[in-house]
């Protein structure tokens, strides 16, 4: 389990540490081009990535509502952040099947779970 006092090394630990602090971070090439999904290196060049902070705003690239037999439908989406990368996420605050491609969203962070991890999710921007 990652410890906040440790210096994070793995992409997963670095990402999680930022999330615990309420920041949405992403790895990038030296020129700032985002790398997603996260990796130790820049795909294609092998250069080490550096981590940058996203402003946490983006657009729904695609979306689905998963229907289970005994539960309300829930949303899974891919959000394109304004920095230019696409991450899997959930859009909350609206019916799972009412999320529209192209909608503007901004990041929120859930309450810490028992391990202290906080999961980023997205909400529709007001007036969107």
């Amino acid at each position, binding site marked *: 389990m990652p410890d906040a006092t440790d210096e994070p090394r793995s*992409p*997963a630990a670095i*990402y*999680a540490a930022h999330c615990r602090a309420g920041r949405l971070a992403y790895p990038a090439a030296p020129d700032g081009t985002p790398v*997603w*999904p*996260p990796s130790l290196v820049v795909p294609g060049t092998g250069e080490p990535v550096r981590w940058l902070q996203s402003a946490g705003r983006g657009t729904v*690239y*695609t*979306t*689905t*509502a*998963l*229907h289970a037999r005994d539960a309300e*439908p*829930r949303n*899974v*989406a*891919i959000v394109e952040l304004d920095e230019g990368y*696409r*991450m*899997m*996420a*959930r859009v909350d605050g609206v019916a*799972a*099947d009412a999320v529209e*491609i*192209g909608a503007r969203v901004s990041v929120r962070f859930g309450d810490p779970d028992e391990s202290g991890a906080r*999961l980023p999710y997205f909400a529709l921007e007001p007036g969107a």
Partner: protein
Amino acid sequence: MSGLRASSAIAGAAESDLGAVAGGMRPVDLMVQASMRALADCGLTLGDVDGLFSATTQLPMAPLNLAQELGIRPRYTDATNVGGSSFMFHVDHARAAIAAGLCEVALIAYGSTQRLVGRSSASVQELDPWETPYRPVMPVTAYALAAARHMHEFGTTRRQLAEVAVSARAWAQRNPAAWSREPLSIDDVLGARMVADPLTVRDCCLVTDGGAAIVVTSAERAAALRRPPVLVLGAGEAHSHRHITGMGDLTRTAASESGARAFAEAGLAPADVDCVQLYDAFTITPILFLEDLGFCAKGDGGPFVSGGRTAPGGVLPMNTNGGGLSYCHPGMYGLLGIVEAVRQLRGEAGERQVPACEVAVAHGNGGVLSSQATLVLGTAGTA
């Protein structure tokens, strides 16, 4: 040009028991069954097999299981597992090994008991720090996300998706081995239980047991065997990602690369193809592959399949066994598509036979639109 065009042929092909197999059957039992049937089909014996190719979700070292059961000591072995397209990769690798003299008779086999044991225990779910927390039920979530994006970009409709399922069912009604043969309409598909918007349960492949095997050898040796040889005129493989968020553009697959390679090697074009077996894990997938293989322009896959154009009597017979949607889907379907292409090219497909079938495409997909491999197959006359 690789120099491999028409150098190898599929000499034998067979299914194992399909659908819901007998209690206690293991994946390797289905591989053994299909292997012995495929060898009998071409008149070869276990003693002839010196190359072994196998994969299944349930056995990470599948060729070891199969060789033990068959009592063979192959001098060339390949356990490539890139999902449901693995067997098209195997054919590509087998023909190279045969041409290089590394083996002479390659057995390619698959078996799955996912219905018997339950799908969740048949497939390892990889955990990913950036996807798993959102609980995407895989693989259907990935395909739903691709379908939704295709609808958004190109105006593809749910009715057009449903056409793929209805076409598959019409073919399945002509295949005694198909799992689902009752009539199916577009409205039935649209009104079925929603699984992952926009895909209903009828937009999703079956969950069955099943397996298959083929025997690949040199074209020269195949010509002397008891069945008409099916030549491998061209083969192409490609892969682009493992996770759906690694795909980038969800409407463009690496089938454009695998297909271009296979057609270039064959010296043929989509217009030359008499029937296609395109991996139909979900109704969106054949639409994507028709576009990316060049049967229609990007975005035109929905109109292309509309009005029964891929159904019996249509312009392009597609998934003539009923496909993963209506015939059989044990989890890694690709090899069953190859078996159907072989039967069509041999003219032994019975009530579903495509007239004058000389060139067939078998295209496999694996993972979440991740791995793509295309075989262009032909009769002896196409060499």
